[in-house]
């Protein structure tokens, strides 16, 4: 088991946001975390990537308790791509990605040529070759996200945690980013907003509501009208996408049913 979350609870101002969550992510799996706004997805992920310290429970990577690891050690095991907040100071794309190499570099004995090649390879991987000297802040939303994916990739961890990696992106970029992630030889745990994207790319889906995991299974098992209604309060019709063979969710507005 790559990632074990055991009975994590976390509260903010004595309000329970994450309520005894346990889950496992298998090596090499692509797992999507789905749930309505405010259900605690981001908070759960932050507990996993150590920005929050859980009130109770523990997180294990390859069986090791991450609360006993230094940030540097954790960075070797797990890379994280967060919803990007604004960066006040501009830098080049190359430098931005290079910051992902922090945990691998030593102050006086780092082969910068090799490091540079790792960065360039990652940029090529996300289709950003030729952007090395561009200013990060001048990039479009999709380019920024791809740069951040590259930054997560150069960390060379086997596990990557993503918090809505395709948020605010148009449909073309959404599929592009997910494709890039899918093509990596990585274990992925990501919160995903768009159910069809989750259905298309994930091996396993975790449904979350009000701080709890309500169900867990394959997209076929999870994306059924009853469960979607319980989670989001929306009527749906689920077909099979003839191209992917995965569930395709069609949303039905309440007015259309009258």
């Amino acid at each position, binding site marked *: 088991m790559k990632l074990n979350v055991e009975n994590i609870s976390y509260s903010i101002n004595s309000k329970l946001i994450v309520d005894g969550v346990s889950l496992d992510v298998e090596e090499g799996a692509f797992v999507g975390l789905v749930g309505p706004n405010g259900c605690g997805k981001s908070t759960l992920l*932050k507990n996993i*990537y*150590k*920005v929050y310290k859980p009130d109770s429970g523990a997180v294990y990577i390859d069986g090791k308790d991450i609360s006993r690891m*230094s*940030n*540097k050690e*954790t*960075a*070797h095991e*797990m*890379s*994280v791509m*967060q919803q990007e*907040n604004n*960066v*006040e*100071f*501009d*830098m*080049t794309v190359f*430098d931005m990605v290079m*910051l*992902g190499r*922090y*945990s691998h*570099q030593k*102050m006086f004995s780092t082969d910068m040529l090799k490091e540079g090649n790792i960065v360039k390879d990652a940029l090529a991987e996300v289709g950003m070759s*030729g952007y090395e*000297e*561009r*200013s990060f802040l*001048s990039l479009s939303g999709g380019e920024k996200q791809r740069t951040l994916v590259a930054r997560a990739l150069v*960390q060379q961890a086997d596990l990557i945690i993503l918090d809505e990696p395709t948020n605010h992106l148009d449909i073309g970029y959404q599929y592009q980013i997910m494709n890039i992630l899918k093509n990596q030889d990585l274990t992925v745990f990501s919160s995903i907003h768009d159910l069809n994207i989750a259905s298309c790319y994930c091996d396993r889906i975790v449904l979350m509501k009000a701080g709890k995991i309500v169900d867990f299974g394959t997209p076929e098992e999870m994306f059924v009208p009853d469960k979607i209604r319980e989670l989001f309060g929306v009527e749906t019709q689920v077909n099979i996408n003839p191209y992917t063979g995965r569930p395709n969710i069609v949303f039905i507005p309440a007015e259309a049913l009258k």
Partner: protein
Amino acid sequence: MEKQKLSLFPLHKESHYITFCIIMAVVLFVAMIFAIRLGSVQIEPDIIKGVLINNLTGKEYYPVTWEESMESIIWNIRAPRVFTAFIVGAGLTLCGILMQVLTKNSLADPYVLGISHGASAGAVSVIMYGYLSFLGGYGVMTGAFLGAVISIVLSMKIASVRKKITATQLVLAGIAVSAMFSAITNLMIYHTKTGSDKVKTASYWMMGSLTGSSWEKLKYVTIAFLVCFGFIMLLTRQLDVLMLGDDVASTVGVNTDKLKLMIILLATMLTGVIVSVSGPIGFVGLTFPHITRSIVGTKHMRLVPASVLVGGAFLVVADILSRVIVAPEELPIGVVSAFFGAPFFLYLIRKGNKKAGG
């Protein structure tokens, strides 16, 4: 695809960067010589060279052809003052960089946590009530340092929420603490008879001044500066990562809590020491990190040494101006640095906006 050239800062190449630093060092050196030369008494460069080298080496390399009073002006008054100007300018710039990274806010300056107002209140209380008089000339300095420490402790206490110190909380706490201490200072001045010598001394000190410089004080700021500079140069890579925000920095592998504590301790110590020597000189710590960043980029390994040179050189020049403009009177250096720094800063902001706006 056409490769778009959108350079962030002009000096990408390492050789250009080094050339820039060398040029700044030369500018600094020339400015220092001028600063020693100019003043109510003009001094020949030969004499300056003779006095400095004789005193530094402790031997008579150059035969003494000048009067005793010349030697005293150069060695006891102007030289310590010029070096103090450099260290104060360099130190404030360094603290500015640290505070900007700490708060992720490019408008932060060394005084953002209320240090300057705390120090002012401490110093003014000593000037007005004289309760540290047993320390002699160091009374005001000690008062200022104590004020700085009290203000930072208060800011930190107010800013820490759930054992974490967030950037926004820190800035807000700093504003509150500043306001409080500035009210206290004003109250003390208000209570004292206007026009009295004490009020004049206090207001002069509050505007920032290098008139009280001496080798003793210089030694004390230099040590603080070198300690801070040394540590910061070891932390440059972590500072680069911290610019991305605390959360990202920690997931990339930085121990952000430890790093932030380190930054606060170093910057507070250095700012406190500087303010206790020169009073709160404004604008240097805000402007020069910016100006240098637009030339050499955001990487701290390059930014810190270059901006220290630029900020230090600027304050040496500002000190010359403060003595020359209304000679034989002297302007407080804080007035000069803001007067010449502000328009230049505005120019840079407008230029930057144009570039970004296309």
